[in-house]
């Protein structure tokens, strides 16, 4: 708390340890105070390498601070506090402790000055967060968590291999700009990509996040992917491939979000979509673009957290999360509904809400640097966001047809946590300079010029108009939460029509390949493992066969040496 050398993750780990041995109110207090104290500590830390030591001939920089990592450090602290507050009513030791450790690992990762430290926290992130998924304590969540863990650990293993190659070739493990060149850099890139939910590597997000506890998802949404965004921003700024990847990420989840009924899964898709914006920004790599990417990460943690919190509150109070089984909740949960709409407005980038001030930066950077097509696609996906996150989420949860569910507002701590997020969303939207002053570069960017505000407002209002009109015409039965406003109806029909058979054959082929592979593997394992489980003497080899091996080996060796 008082010395700058103390790594920022330490308070979280210490706090978790203390919390483990306390109970009730004391533990709640510790859970809340830890991020606050740690945040205050972070405010006093200057830029530079704070803590380092030697490890096998390499310099381990456990705590390295610069403007980029500070920005993420701040938002992780804010997020940790809000998450803790939101989950304050939960009386589950497992979730409380792992939540704190998870937040601490994320903080540790962004302040890692070398790749080994990064790897350690990378794996810690996976191991600590999986308990938030398992905490649901259902068979389904156990399996989802296991899949999540396998993918995350695998990402860590790939990262480690990459690091070993990297250290071998460059003779340094400093975590700085890497850039795509040799095998090592590709391996590290892929490892980052897995955590960042690159297309085709993204399944764990939509698989595991909706299975976590109502409060656990809020934690998960804040940290893992943002750490990956941070890592990309540090190691691969200006890598053009990222622009293509980012645009794909921004666009493809929209189609899936449309056909999805589980509202938390819709949010998971929308999360990939938002990360797409950040990845595009990193790919463009100019100061403005990087600023846009990281500030969007900052804002995304807030508004996506807010949306996940409001859905968590709905799930907590009603036990349901499917769009088709909810509706009309505004009568009994008006405050939650309003807070949810603030989040929705932010993610849709309404002027005066936080999404606007950061998303526009990425868009401007795209068009300034000759990525006109990317700009167009991002615009399309921005409209898509407005549809599936901005309208679909609040509409189907709180309005639409009345599902007849009558409940009350969620507990006070939930409301308070959501309120804090909402206030921050609006505050940043109204006074973006506060956020801009924290950004790594000074670009003097101002989001509130006539073109921006007009474009965005037009986009949003016409989308909204279309939604209203379609709704009045009863073209979409409310039970089927699939309204895609901005794309022509042709595309709506065409895309599923093309995609479904394509994916069907794709998965069929994939299944066939995997099946034959597994069969081969099992056959091979069966052959190797002559000692089957029973472990009774009858299964072990006779001395005679051992002796045969001895003579075979001797013979082979003699033949080879006489050759």
């Amino acid at each position, binding site marked *: 708390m008082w010395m700058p050398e103390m790594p920022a993750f330490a308070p979280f780990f210490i706090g978790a340890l203390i919390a483990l041995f306390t109970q009730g109110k004391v533990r709640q207090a510790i859970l809340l105070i830890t991020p606050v104290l740690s945040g205050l500590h972070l405010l006093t830390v200057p830029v530079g390498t704070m803590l380092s030591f030697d490890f096998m001939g390499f310099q381990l920089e456990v705590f390295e601070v610069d403007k980029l990592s500070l920005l993420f450090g701040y938002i992780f602290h804010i997020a940790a506090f809000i998450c803790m507050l939101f989950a304050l009513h939960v009386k589950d030791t497992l979730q409380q402790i792992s939540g704190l450790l998870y937040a601490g690992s994320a903080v540790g990762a962004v302040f890692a000055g070398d790749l080994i430290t990064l790897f350690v926290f990378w794996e810690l992130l996976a191991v600590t967060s999986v308990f938030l998924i398992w905490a649901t304590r259902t068979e389904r969540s156990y399996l989802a968590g296991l899949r999540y863990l396998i993918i995350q650990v695998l990402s860590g293993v790939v990262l480690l291999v990459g690091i070993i190659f990297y250290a*071998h070739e460059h003779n340094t493990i400093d975590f700085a700009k890497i850039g795509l060149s040799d095998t090592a850099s590709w391996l590290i890139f892929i490892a980052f990509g897995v955590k960042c939910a690159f297309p085709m590597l993204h399944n764990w997000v939509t698989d595991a996040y909706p299975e976590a506890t109502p409060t656990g998802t809020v934690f998960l949404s804040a940290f893992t992917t943002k750490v990956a965004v941070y890592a990309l921003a540090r190691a691969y700024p200006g890598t053009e491939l990222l622009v293509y990847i980012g645009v794909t990420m921004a666009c493809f989840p929209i189609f899936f979000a449309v056909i999805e009924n589980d509202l938390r899964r819709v949010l998971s898709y929308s999360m990939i979509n938002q990360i797409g914006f950040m990845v595009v920004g990193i790919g463009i790599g100019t100061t403005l673009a990087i600023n846009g990417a990281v500030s969007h990460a900052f804002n995304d943690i807030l508004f996506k957290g807010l949306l996940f919190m409001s859905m968590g509150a709905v799930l907590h109070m009603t036990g349901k999360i499917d769009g088709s089984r909810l509706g009309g909740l505004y009568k009994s949960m008006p405050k939650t509904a309003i807070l949810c709409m603030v989040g929705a407005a932010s993610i849709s980038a309404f002027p005066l809400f936080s999404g606007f001030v950061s998303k526009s930066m990425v868009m401007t950077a795209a068009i300034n640097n000759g990525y006109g097509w990317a700009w167009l696609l991002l615009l399309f996906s921005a409209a898509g966001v407005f549809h599936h996150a901005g309208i679909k989420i609040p509409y189907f949860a709180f309005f639409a047809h009345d599902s007849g569910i009558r409940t009350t507002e969620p507990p006070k701590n939930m409301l308070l946590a959501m309120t804090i997020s909402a206030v921050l969303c609006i505050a940043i939207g109204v006074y973006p300079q506060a956020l801009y002053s924290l950004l790594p570069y000074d670009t003097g960017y101002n989001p509130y010029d006539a073109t921006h505000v007009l474009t965005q407002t037009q986009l949003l209002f016409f989308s909204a108009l279309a939604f209203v009109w379609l709704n009045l015409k009863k073209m979409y039965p409310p039970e089927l939460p699939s309204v895609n406003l901005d794309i022509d109806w042709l595309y709506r029909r065409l895309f599923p029509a093309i995609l479904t058979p394509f994916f069907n054959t794709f998965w069929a082929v994939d299944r066939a390949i995997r099946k034959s592979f597994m069969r081969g593997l099992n056959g091979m394992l069966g052959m190797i*493992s002559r*000692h089957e*489980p029973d472990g009774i003497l009858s299964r*072990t080899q006779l001395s005679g066969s051992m*002796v045969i091996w*001895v003579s075979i080996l001797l013979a*082979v060796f003699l033949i080879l040496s006489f050759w």
Partner: protein
Amino acid sequence: MIQHLPILQVIIPLLAAPICFILKEARLVRWFVLIANVMAFVVSIMLLQQVNLHGTLVYSLGGWEAPIGIEYRVDELNAYLMILVTSISTITIMAAGSSLTKEMAESKQTYFYIAYLLCLTGLLGILATGDAFNVFVFLEISSLASYTMIAMGNDRRSLWASYQYLIMGTIGATFILIGIGLMYMMTGTLNMNDLAERLPEVEQTKTVFTAFAFFLVGVCLKLALFPLHLWLPNAYAYAPSIATVFLAATSTKVAIYVLLRFIFSVFGFEFSFTHMPLTEILVSLGLVGVIAASVVAIYQTNIKRLFAYSSVSQIGYMILGIGIGTKTGLTATMLHLFNHALMKSAIFLALAGLVYRVGSVNIKAFAGLGKQMPWTMAAIVVGGLSLIGMPLTVGFISKWYLILALLESNWWPVAVLVLIGSLLAIAYIWRLVEVAYFKPALQNNQSYKEAPLAILIPAWIFVIANIYFGIDTSFTVGLSERTAELLFGVAK
């Protein structure tokens, strides 16, 4: 006194063994054996100091000079391994009292301690001596003592396992003897130094080739290189827990020392790696051993047997390091030798504690033990993480060096296979963790207490060593690098 250190190292446990007969009383014997072990440990530390001060120590037995008499030679390599063997033996014996009381009758314990001391004598003798025939003699002493220890297990299958080990061990020893005999025939000497000098003159003969082949296969049988490992799983699984700890941690390591000593110091690097197909044999068998033994380990239900198979795969890593034939590879082997001894001591000692309370090492008996015996299970888990090669444990350090050595030689596919071996290790460790921490306890064993402190403390000494040497690597890496240089230096 100081100049007699090399022989003291061997003679202390050797003389202590018959004294145990006189003491008779198991409790007295226990303390006496501990004292003898501590003395041996102190001697080994002094030896390393002496070696650091004066270089290689040469000691002629009975004042007879080398070509006629037997000579003990202690350089940094043996001194390093002597410290390893004596320290592990000492810490293990601390836990022996309570573990043995549970596992065998009081009357048998004295004999166990005697066998233990004799085994220690044999291992230290192999390390200390500079005479090829002496190696064989001490090898037999240690082997016969280990057959005895294994046969004393309270499972009836231990007799069978011991008998099988006896047959295989004897074949191995015979092969070694044939190898030594052929060398003697060609050179007329048994002293290793003389052998190293005279062998080059006759090395292009088929007799020397054959000698090398017999010797190599014999030693590989002793160190349980795949596929000559078949005696090992049962021997480890059914031996008394303390014997398992001791044998798993030291005996295969000493066999690897014999291999290193002969291929580098006696035959010489040039002969072993260029004239002989050593690289091909060692690398391919090492790799197959790593993968196959790990896969087999995944299917085991007897946990001692599981870790025995894991030992076979870990031996594969060490052999792989030798097979690369570079200094870094040898460093990796030396490191893993030391580190693997730490891991397996921690794990098998914790298992000894588990046997003490639960009485079974079947995987089913592990259900819910994570809650009931948290410290014991934690020791196994940390040891397991080390086996996998988690950073901050010793396992990571040795894997790192091994991979480094492979990359230096541009053997990418092999490096990948080594990493796959690590993944397989995750699989068999995870099975254990899953049962211990995520399965509810069985109905009839709700109330197991933590293992007795007498076992738990030694186990945790090893666990802490696992973590300590994983972070502060200056001692192990420094020594390993120096010994690797030493072996290569002798070769040139």
